[in-house]
């Protein structure tokens, strides 16, 4: 008995020492530092995949697998999102019943601005995504909102993303505690395990990019939203960021939240911010 107690005490003190030595940030964790987080996030991936060009990360699984990349590049001549893109261009130019257009709702007439979304709305105190802004524009002009997960919204955002292709992601976090809280909330959601399968976003996209989950090759989390919206062969159609969050939740056997739930908007804010500097590659095509 005596030996057991001393071993127990010994291991306990060893654990405490280890804890004190390995988590210096635990004490300083109260302060949210998005700049430091983004730097650490990018460096993690740059170091894990030294042969991948920084801007290539936005191509998801294609940055992880040469053969897939080659096939994708061939298809980019006639990409599957082409129909949605053309439809989106037409939709964007078509006036509402009251004569106004989407251009009236957005800076620069809505052209070449996708890289600024999502943004933190200081009046509202919440993160606003591009899709949310588009539906608000519609409703403000007497039109019914589009579903966040179906084709029409994806066609519109496909066109807007296309006008921003190549531009670096440029998300701003104002010096507002609510914005910092939203960023932190998004980060928390990203790393939290959920669903009966107990997966977190990080489990696949931070720990296992380039590896397979069944027949799919996993994309790295860095720049994972830069290609949105995407034509997914799995869906035989276009999908928005909301669609992906919702389907991923279901796949881990978690009941999905509403398409523009606070958590989803916040995680989109977090993921977009840490990809600042990487080019917009949307609309994209994925397996």
């Amino acid at each position, binding site marked *: 008995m005596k030996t057991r107690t001393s071993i127990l005490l010994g291991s306990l003190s060893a654990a405490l020492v280890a804890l004190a030595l390995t988590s210096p940030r635990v004490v300083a964790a109260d302060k949210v530092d998005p700049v430091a987080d983004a730097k650490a996030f990018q460096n993690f991936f740059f170091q894990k995949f030294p042969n991948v060009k920084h801007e290539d990360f936005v191509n998801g699984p294609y940055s992880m697998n040469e053969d897939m990349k080659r096939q994708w590049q061939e298809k980019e001549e006639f990409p599957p999102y082409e129909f949605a893109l053309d439809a989106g261009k037409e939709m964007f130019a078509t006036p509402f019943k009251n004569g106004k257009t989407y251009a009236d709702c957005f800076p620069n007439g809505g052209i070449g601005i996708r890289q600024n979304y999502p943004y933190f709305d200081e009046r509202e105190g919440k993160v606003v995504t591009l899709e949310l802004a588009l539906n608000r524009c519609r409703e403000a002009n007497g039109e019914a909102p589009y579903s966040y997960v179906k084709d029409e919204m994806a066609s519109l955002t496909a066109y807007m993303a296309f006008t921003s292709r190549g531009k670096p992601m440029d998300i701003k976090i104002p010096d507002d505690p609510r914005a910092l809280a939203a960023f932190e909330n998004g980060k928390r959601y990203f*790393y*939290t*395990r959920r*669903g*009966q399968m107990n997966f977190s976003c990080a489990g696949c996209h931070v720990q296992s990019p380039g590896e397979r989950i069944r027949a799919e090759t996993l994309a790295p989390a860095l720049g994972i939203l830069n290609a949105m919206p995407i034509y997914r062969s799995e869906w035989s159609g276009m999908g928005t960021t909301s669609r992906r969050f919702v389907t991923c939740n279901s796949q881990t056997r*978690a*009941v999905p939240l509403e398409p523009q739930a606070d958590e989803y908007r916040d995680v989109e804010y977090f993921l977009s911010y840490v990809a600042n500097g990487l080019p917009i590659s949307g609309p994209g095509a994925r397996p």
Partner: protein
Amino acid sequence: MKRSLPLAMLLALSLAPAARAANEADYKAAYAAAEAASKEAAGMRNQWTVTVSTLAAAKKAADGGDFDRAVAAAQEAEALAKASIFQATSEKDAWKAMEIR
């Protein structure tokens, strides 16, 4: 170990629930417990799809008069709901261990 195994078995047998068929009252109690846990999980915004479907299966079995299956499903739904609550609670701090720093 050798001494305690038959003792453990005896204990298990004596504590095991009575092997009679379940009735509607059993089901209603089991379902109520499961539903309460399920609602708590939903309130934490960490509901599992399997909890919802197992609970629905329990109700369906009861509606068809199969209370044995209904009770079993309700108990499973309650266990799933409790697991999801445990997950949400422990993940409140556990997520930080995954964070890239």
